[in-house]
């Protein structure tokens, strides 16, 4: 299949709606299995940390949440700019869907980070730490994009204006990423993002990667579901939706 045809199909609401409906259940089942396995691995199989004891196990919910929070922002910004440039309905539907989900995982990263920080750093929060503050900025960017969009009665206008803010906010992404290296304060450096030698042993790493994969699939499931809803909203007058409803009410 050519690139042009793929792009065309991805821009076709009925195709994406049906594809999402087909993929959804499988993605959901895989997410449940991976998260269950990752939780068991993280809480039971992984050995306690030599420094932090069992307290380090918070990593298995904290890092995946932070990862999704950041990844969702990148997805939202890319989708919003594609929608802005090519006037693609589906792209805007993805951008709208990514915002609340990304915001909730960013919130989760902040809260689990604070709860982890209390016993390890002696404080829930530190304004002087760049990672913490830039992560909070990420949450505000999400809320800003959502509020801005909601402030327009005209959906197209809301899509386009909020897309601009989403793209401008991308400057925060590398700041979050490199904050632990540029300003090393409280937050520790990267754990797994060193390809040559991750600073973590295999029996601790495998549950973490499992959990990240599980969270990613969970995120994918949420986006598929929300994109389906967005498509129905945006295409409510289309003939295929009418036919779908006729069939669905049977």
């Amino acid at each position, binding site marked *: 299949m050519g690139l042009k045809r793929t792009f065309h199909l991805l821009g076709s609401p009925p195709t994406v709606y049906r594809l999402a409906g087909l993929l959804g259940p499988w993605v959901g089942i895989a997410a449940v299995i991976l998260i269950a396995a990752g939780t068991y691995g993280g809480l*039971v199989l992984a050995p306690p940390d030599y420094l932090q004891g069992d307290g380090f196990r918070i990593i298995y919910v904290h890092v995946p949440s932070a990862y999704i929070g950041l990844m969702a922002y990148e997805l939202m910004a890319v989708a919003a700019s594609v929608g802005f440039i090519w006037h693609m309905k589906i792209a805007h539907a993805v951008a709208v869907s990514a915002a609340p989900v990304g915001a909730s*995982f960013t919130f989760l990263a902040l809260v689990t980070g604070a709860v982890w920080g209390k016993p390890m750093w002696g404080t829930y929060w530190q304004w002087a730490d760049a990672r913490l503050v830039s992560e909070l900025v990420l949450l505000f960017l999400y809320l800003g994009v959502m509020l801005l969009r909601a402030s327009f009665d005209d959906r197209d206008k809301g899509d386009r204006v909020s897309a601009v803010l989403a793209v401008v906010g991308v400057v925060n992404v590398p700041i979050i990423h490199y904050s632990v290296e540029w300003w090393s304060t409280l937050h520790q450096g990267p754990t797994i993002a060193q390809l040559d030698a991750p600073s973590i042993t295999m029996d601790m790493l495998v549950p973490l990667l499992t959990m990240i994969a599980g969270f990613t699939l*969970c995120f994918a499931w949420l986006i598929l579901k929300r994109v389906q809803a967005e498509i129905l909203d945006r295409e409510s007058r289309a003939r295929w939706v009418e036919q779908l409803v006729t069939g669905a009410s049977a």
Partner: protein
Amino acid sequence: MKEFLAMGGYAAYVWTSYGITAFVVTLNVWLAQRRYRQALDAIRPAGTQAEPVRQPTVRRMT
């Protein structure tokens, strides 16, 4: 089991983190499903409720 729940003295922090995570993830799933159901409901009245493909089973009193 008791030792597992104690989490080496970090029980409050570990279980709080996992609890909040479970809550937020579950909330996300619930909200996405509700969002989808609302979208379906919104198009139904305007659509073809009047002529469903298959009639519901109705006992005729005649």
